[in-house]
């Protein structure tokens, strides 16, 4: 079994491992919670994970380059608010224009971060720690005590996240979820196939070598942050559409949630390895655990966080241990292969 697995490449392995964990969690809760396993569960998770999936994807892009973006929460909040104010001001703005506005708006924040990280060479954790506070402050200034309410928003906007594109039995596939998944898959494929994207991995893997190999590090990292910004902006748009009511606390704490999702999804926090698909599963896992815990009679409301923390930790630890075993196996196989070659050759 293990041997068979060890033939696959690490990234596929990781995703399989994650899916296993996911299955285990679902199995566990299905024994604990009555009428748990049904389409409804899927609908809940799928529609609530859509936003975090996008943010986790953005976070992954940045982490791959051995950076981190702690400002995503503030960017989501600000974008949601700005988008809301815009559509409130001109209600018959074309949807596509509105979406592109959100993404552009987010991309600007990304560019700001990216500039300081890539060109001014300030460590990402410092830049984004600062911009997290900065953007939030700007939002409070900008909001000036007002808040966006769903009554200010056009019908199409508030209803689109839940419009059912198609259904499989009980499983409803809603716009927000489908869009998120489509984007994640698109980014996933891009990261595996686009040569530019491979450079993200290269830089995260060994910045020094990247410099020597003549990869345009500055531009690539900047590019990563801008893309992340755009995705976060889109998340902001979805946030607005889903919740309708936007105050200055919108998106508070998303930075850590997204990092958690990415990490649980097997993205190496030190860059170079990991997939956005993994990040998606990570986001689902965290969301699933959170939602299920609320429904789990055994743990009172107050135990939720404690259990969540424990589960995240064990999930990551498990993943690490399993991966190590498999890698060791691969190495052993590789060695054997060499041995054989020698004896035959």
């Amino acid at each position, binding site marked *: 079994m293990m041997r068979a697995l060890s033939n696959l490449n690490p990234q596929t392995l990781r995703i399989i491992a994650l899916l296993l964990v996911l299955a285990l969690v679902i199995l566990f809760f299905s024994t604990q919670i009555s009428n748990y396993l049904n389409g409804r569960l899927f609908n809940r998770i799928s529609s609530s994970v859509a936003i975090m999936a996008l943010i986790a994807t953005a976070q992954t892009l940045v982490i791959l380059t051995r950076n981190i973006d702690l400002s995503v929460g503030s960017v989501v909040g600000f974008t949601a608010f700005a988008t809301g104010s815009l559509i409130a001001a001109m209600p018959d703005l074309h949807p596509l224009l509105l979406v592109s506005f959100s993404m552009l708006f987010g991309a600007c924040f990304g560019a700001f971060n990216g500039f300081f990280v890539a060109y001014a060479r*300030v460590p990402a954790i410092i830049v984004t*720690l*600062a911009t997290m506070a900065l953007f939030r402050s700007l939002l409070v200034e900008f909001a000036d005590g007002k808040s966006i309410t769903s009554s200010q928003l056009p019908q199409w906007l508030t209803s689109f996240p839940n419009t059912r594109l198609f259904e499989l039995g009980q499983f409803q596939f809603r716009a927000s979820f489908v869009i998120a998944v489509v984007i994640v898959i698109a980014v996933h494929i891009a990261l595996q196939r686009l040569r530019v994207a491979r450079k993200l991995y290269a830089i995260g893997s060994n910045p020094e070598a990247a410099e020597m190999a003549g990869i345009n590090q500055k531009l690539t990292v900047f590019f990563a942050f801008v893309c992340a910004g755009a995705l976060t902006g889109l998340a902001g748009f979805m946030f607005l559409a889903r919740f309708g009511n936007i105050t200055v606390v919108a998106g508070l704490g998303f930075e850590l949630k997204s990092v958690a999702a990415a990490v649980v999804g097997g993205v190496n926090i030190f860059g170079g390895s990991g997939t956005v698909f993994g990040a998606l599963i990570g986001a689902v896992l965290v969301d699933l655990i959170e939602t299920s815990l609320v429904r789990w009679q055994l743990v009172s409301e107050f135990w939720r966080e*404690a259990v969540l*923390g424990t589960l995240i930790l064990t999930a*990551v630890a498990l993943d690490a241990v399993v991966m190590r075993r498999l890698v060791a196996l691969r190495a052993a196989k590789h060695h054997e292969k060499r041995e054989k070659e020698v004896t035959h050759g």
Partner: protein
Amino acid sequence: MDKPSPLASMWAKVQTWEGFLVCALIFIVLMNTALSPQFMTLGNQINLFQLSIEKIIVALVMTFVIINAEIDLSVGSMMGLAACAFGYLFQMGVDPVLAIAIVLLIGAAGGALNGFFITTIGLPSLVVTLATLIGFRGLARVLVEDRGITDFPDWFDALGQQGWLGPVPFALIAFGVLFVCLYVLLQRTGFGRKTYVIGTNRDVAAFAGIDTNKHKMILFIMSGLVSAFAGLLYAARVGAVRGDVALGFELDIITMVLLGGVSIFGGSGTLLGTLLAILIVLNLRNGMALLNITGHIQTGVIGILLIASVLLPRVDVSTLLRGKKQQESGS
């Protein structure tokens, strides 16, 4: 070796990051004194520390942790857990002194837990402490649920609220003592040297026979212990605890340390830098508060300062080196 002129050496000192911080600090203090009459009053000077005393105490150990190329995001939650655990035990009728002992134990245990996953399991500290940030907060929640616990014994409240040596409160003295001890520990002892070496390149340290895991374990236990201590001080200062005590403190703490010129990738930085950064942040916040500048603008200013803190001393370390350090501390 010819001695450089005193003036030149002065200038050389100013050019160091610490030197720059000193200048910045002097400037800020002067500005504050000029702009608000109440600034230079003894009361305000003490309040200025009191208001963030717990954060700045934890910032001292955080300096060790970050120089060691690790990070501890769980400090805020640990402070909360400690405070709540104390409140809980107190409500259970446990003798406060015993309660304090138990709480400190909890702190050490929490640190050890972080340490275990980071050293034995080999997970990145960012990940582990991110999880325990949630977990410890959760435990605090479990202990106090939706209650607010208050009416601690007077001597306990006094510890946090009244002058101990004259007008100087206990916490401030504790900070002073702790600073001196930790300063010597980091800058003068073998332990400190190891902290730097491991932070610079873990493998090199290991190949030199240093038990890096043990060292990191000790650091995280220190971090947990001091956080718990700070949590108790907080409880004493505000005379009440609640599930959300010290929520989000970790970021302020890390900000101060980084502002002090400690490299987020480990291996470089000094406690003096951290101290200066602390003074700058506190004075700046206090000054702005006295000028009735509201919270979010204050945070914004600190944010800008943080970026500036890296841009200004833009001298030595090339990004390549940074990258390398981080990689090695990571692997």
